[in-house]
């Protein structure tokens, strides 16, 4: 008991400094030494530590931005002012200012003042006392967030690189917190401080009218005024451009606020801008859907879709397939690197590490192969998702495993894809092995065709190993052409590109290798990808979202990642998860890669839904999240038309198979053979056949043990396809003709 008593008697502040229970996870309360804690955990009290430094595998994209802005900052620093050596004085200076002015002024302002007058204590104090910061004001900003001025300054400095996404801005803000001082110096400090003065006034005015809103505006307005300023001052085209590419700013709602406010000329200009840029207009419309506001107001997804088609880059899902070791991951890793999605530092690190385990050529593949098993074995095992942009598209890249045993995973990716890259290893003997009987080239190509992928880029990889031999390339193209035609690809939809994934030749930019350019004048791989046409999405259909991963994200609720197959969704909507029949509420929608919050999701997009009120045990990969008024049916028996591939065994009734659809594989049984159909006309050749042989078409009844969520092909073809596998090979491609009870 005495132990308890000591605790009870202990003064609370004794625990304050490091063991603050908030902001730390539960586990950390156990036996972590202060040294470890100081080394590894983030504490707000230690101001100079960046939160991001605790995240080892930071988004490569962000890293890039980081580098960019560092570069920018250092450049501008040189341009504007060289007297940055007084850093050390700053702390002292602030302290002496504090001695005089006391705690009436928020840190930031004191710092600003100190920086402004280059650590001249006297002048800073003068400035502070003369300026109109009252206690009230500073208190107010203190509540809303200690950061607005910072943010403001950071953004002002970084007009050219800022990407106005709320999440990003948030992260940047943290980062910028450190380099704040430079930022202040880089831009015209006077204007900025004036604006912040403005803000203070404005927020003060609003306190009287509605205190609750004030907190919000207090936080938001600076950003806004800033944008106005920056657009006014520089009317930077780049900023506008970025805005259009990232339609998901929640700024829209802030815009409304501004227009309500009394900003006069500036506001009207701003609203003009709003009218000019279509995305902003859209955001204004959808603003009522941001959480916290009236959620009944539904977004007209179809309109949004049409708009998005016109305005923006289009979403395109692309799967990379091919025989094992054809170099899929390496090629895509290199492409991402050339696109600047992966930092040089990371690649260098991978090079070093892969060399250590004797797989130096796998460095680029490690960008996509992240698990330890995959790296040590040098084989991709599961689909890796990635995102990059081309001139016309936002591409969700899925790197599929090529190994025979991981075809179920490959199907998962392929069933979400709109287009595909087929990678062929051109080195001696490799193409033949991949294209032969045991090879995956054929199976993969047939699979993606049967899963609805029509457009294909064939990347003939590793041509550098055969000295860019044109004969080899032509030979491969000829053989493939014949086969792909049989598989049902139109010649016009297939493009052949000679590349080298390891050397990065002809991936992003057009080939430079002289021995290749002699005979190849065509486009690079990325240019081919850029020319793909996205399919029409069934936006008008009820909402359907196929879950391909279930995990616990940050915060409450569970995260489901996957692809929206049809319809659209906005947060704060009730949905149903089938086949469990669980009802839940969508808390937020995040894009898979950037982790930014979206205001709505449309068919064809890969997103992560954060769902509340659903039992995680009842949701599995393959569940379908659907609209509550028009839920999908979960059935155990269905009728399907099947096209039998090259199988060694005939299909009879009672045949045990694995049924693969979307991200799921389920054991199933062929219940009945209803009829054999003619290959092209679809006429019934024989009723109730004894068995079905390879190459035949048939109508069969399939039964599963658990409910599966599919739609009839005629209603929604995205959810109407599945494949049957048996004993490690794909035996049939199927479309659902009828759902039975």
């Amino acid at each position, binding site marked *: 008991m005495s132990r308890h008593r000591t605790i009870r008697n202990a003064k609370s502040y004794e625990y304050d400094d490091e063991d603050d229970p908030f902001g730390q996870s539960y586990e950390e309360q156990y036996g972590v030494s202060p040294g470890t804690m100081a080394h590894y955990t983030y504490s707000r009290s230690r101001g100079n530590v960046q939160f991001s430094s605790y995240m080892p595998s930071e988004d490569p994209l962000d890293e890039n931005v980081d580098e960019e802005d560092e570069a920018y900052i250092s450049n501008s620093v040189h341009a504007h002012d060289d007297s940055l050596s007084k850093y050390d004085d700053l702390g002292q200076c602030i302290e002496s200012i504090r001695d005089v002015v006391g705690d009436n002024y928020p840190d930031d302002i004191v710092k600003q003042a100190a920086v402004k007058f280059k650590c001249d204590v006297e002048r800073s104090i003068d400035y502070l006392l003369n300026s109109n910061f009252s206690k009230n004001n500073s208190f107010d900003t203190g509540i809303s967030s200690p950061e607005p001025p910072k943010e403001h300054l950071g953004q002002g400095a970084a007009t050219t690189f800022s990407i106005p996404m709320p999440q990003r801005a948030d992260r940047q803000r943290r980062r910028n917190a450190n380099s704040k001082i430079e930022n202040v110096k880089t831009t015209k400090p006077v204007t900025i401080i004036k604006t912040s003065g403005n803000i203070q006034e404005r927020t003060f005015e609003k306190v009287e009218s509605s205190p609750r809103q004030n907190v919000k505006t207090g936080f938001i307005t600076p950003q806004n005024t800033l944008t106005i300023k920056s657009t006014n001052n520089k009317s930077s085209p780049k900023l506008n451009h970025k805005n259009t590419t990232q339609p998901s700013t929640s700024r829209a709602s802030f815009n409304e606020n501004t227009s309500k406010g009394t900003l006069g000329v500036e506001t009207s200009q701003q609203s003009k801008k709003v009218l000019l840029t279509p995305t902003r207009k859209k955001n204004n419309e959808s603003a009522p859907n941001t959480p916290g506001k009236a959620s009944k107001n539904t977004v007209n997804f179809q309109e949004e879709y049409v708009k998005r088609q016109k305005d923006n880059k289009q979403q395109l899902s692309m799967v990379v397939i091919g025989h094992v070791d054809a170099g899929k991951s390496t090629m895509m890793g290199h492409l991402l690197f050339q696109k600047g999605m992966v930092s040089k530092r990371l690649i260098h690190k991978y090079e070093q590490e892969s060399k250590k385990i004797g797989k130096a050529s796998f460095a680029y593949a490690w960008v996509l192969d*992240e698990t330890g098993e995959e790296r040590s074995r040098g084989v991709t095992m599961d689909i890796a998702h990635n995102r990059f942009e081309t001139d016309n598209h936002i591409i969700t890249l899925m790197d599929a495993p090529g190994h025979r*045993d991981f075809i179920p995973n490959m199907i998962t990716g392929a069933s979400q894809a709109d287009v595909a890259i087929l990678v062929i290893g051109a080195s001696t003997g490799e193409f033949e092995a991949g294209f032969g009987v045991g090879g995956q080239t054929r199976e993969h190509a047939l699979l993606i065709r049967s899963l609805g992928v029509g457009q294909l880029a064939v990347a003939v990889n590793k041509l550098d190993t055969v000295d860019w031999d044109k004969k080899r390339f032509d030979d491969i193209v000829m053989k493939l052409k014949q086969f792909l035609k049989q598989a049902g690809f139109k010649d016009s939809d297939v493009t052949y590109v000679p590349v080298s994934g390891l050397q990065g030749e002809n991936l992003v930019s057009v080939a430079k290798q002289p021995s290749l350019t002699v005979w190849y004048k065509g486009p690079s791989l990325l240019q081919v990808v850029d020319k793909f046409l996205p399919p029409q999405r069934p936006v008008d259909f009820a909402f359907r979202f196929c879950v391909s*991963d279930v995990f616990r994200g940050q915060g409450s609720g569970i995260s489901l990642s996957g692809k929206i197959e049809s319809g659209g969704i906005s947060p704060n909507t009730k949905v149903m998860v089938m086949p469990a029949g669980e009802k839940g509420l969508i808390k937020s929608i995040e894009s898979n890669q950037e982790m930014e919050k979206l205001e709505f999701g449309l068919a064809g997009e890969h997103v992560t839904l954060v769902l509340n009120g659903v039992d995680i045990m009842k949701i599995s990969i393959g569940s379908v999240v659907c609209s509550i008024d028009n839920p999908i049916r979960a059935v155990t028996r269905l009728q399907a038309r099947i096209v039998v591939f090259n199988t060694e065994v005939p299909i*009879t*009734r009672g*045949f045990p198979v694995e049924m693969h659809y979307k991200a799921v594989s389920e*054991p199933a049984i062929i219940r009945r053979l209803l009829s054999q159909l003619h290959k092209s006309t679809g006429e019934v050749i024989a009723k*109730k056949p004894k068995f079905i042989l390879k190459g035949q078409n048939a109508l069969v009844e399939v039964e599963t043990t658990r409910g599966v969520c599919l739609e009839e092909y005629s209603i929604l073809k995205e959810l109407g396809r599945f494949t049957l596998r048996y004993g490690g090979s794909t035996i049939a491609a199927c479309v659902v003709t009828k759902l039975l009870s």
Partner: protein
Amino acid sequence: MKLIYRDIGKDSSGQVTLVAEDGEDMWHTYNLLQPGDSLRASTLRKVQVESNTGSVGSNRVRTTLTIAIEAIDFDSQACMLHVKGRNIQENQYVKMGAYHTLDLEPNRKFVLAKKSWDSVHLDRINVACDPSQNADVAAVVMQEGLAHVCLVLASMTLVRAKIETQIPRKRKGSVQQHDKGVEKFFDSVVQAVIRHINFEVVKCVLLASPGFVKDQFYEYMFSQAVKTDNKTLIENKSKFLCVHSSTGFKHSLKEVLVDPAVSARLSDTKAASEIKALQDFYKTLQNEPDKACYGIKQIEKANESDAIDTLLITDGLLRSQDVQLRKKLVTIVDSVKDSGGVVRVFSSMHISGEQLGQLTGVAAILRFPIPDMSDSESSDDD
């Protein structure tokens, strides 16, 4: 199974005395029993006693009862056999015609009397009493997130544990969640292996999976065994064998058992031979469709012309409560045997037997092609 006494007359009526020793014997017994037979076994029964003073008490008495079988129930998980019927031999506790359910107990003898013993029954007794048939194999069929721990006995495959865990997929920047999920999954499989596999009986444990899951698991299990100082696992390390399978579903066990590496290590198990027989059937169907047929009607037809070379039939069909149907099947079996054919009775507890059960339950490879069979439809569509 031990056969203690056998008295079957020329009219094929008579009785046998048997001792069932394990779960598998129960399964054999289950296949012998039919409604209408009489069964005599020792059992416990709750008996009400009225004392002199009129107070009523009840106590459980061990007594031997003879019942006329009405219903038979086999619990495949516990390998228990429950036989319900009416008492036909009155004793001091139980009246004539009173209902009783006999739970057949292992290692106690029972007497089964039938009006007519047929060849299938007698074969079954012979098979059951053959001690050389015992080859116990355990198998863990797995894929990422799904595992089946099975015991493969001579005439039945028992799924002892099915482990299904949600493993988060690898996502950019968060591989840890995936790795943690895999570890958790492996942990529960190791637990299942320790709990369900009796290494004193089992001669071989097959680890089967697509990809590298089996190797990963093998490593994990023995590193865990060393850590926790699990002697049974470490001592039996040599019994584990990694085999490839295409999925982690139960029916992948079929691929595992016919794997050459496995059959080299095990003596010919019934399960493997059944799978091979079924494969042969499918091969014939593929290459010479007229030389293979399935469905009772077609088989009957083929039998009329003595065409059947190999008959595949599930015991599920032979257990049929329909006396007429069973008689018909037994005649087919007998005539195939008489004409020099091979009859393979598949156990419906095996995967191959399950599949054959779906395929009407009876199939045959013929000696010579009989065309024009496909127009007569397979009879029992359900």
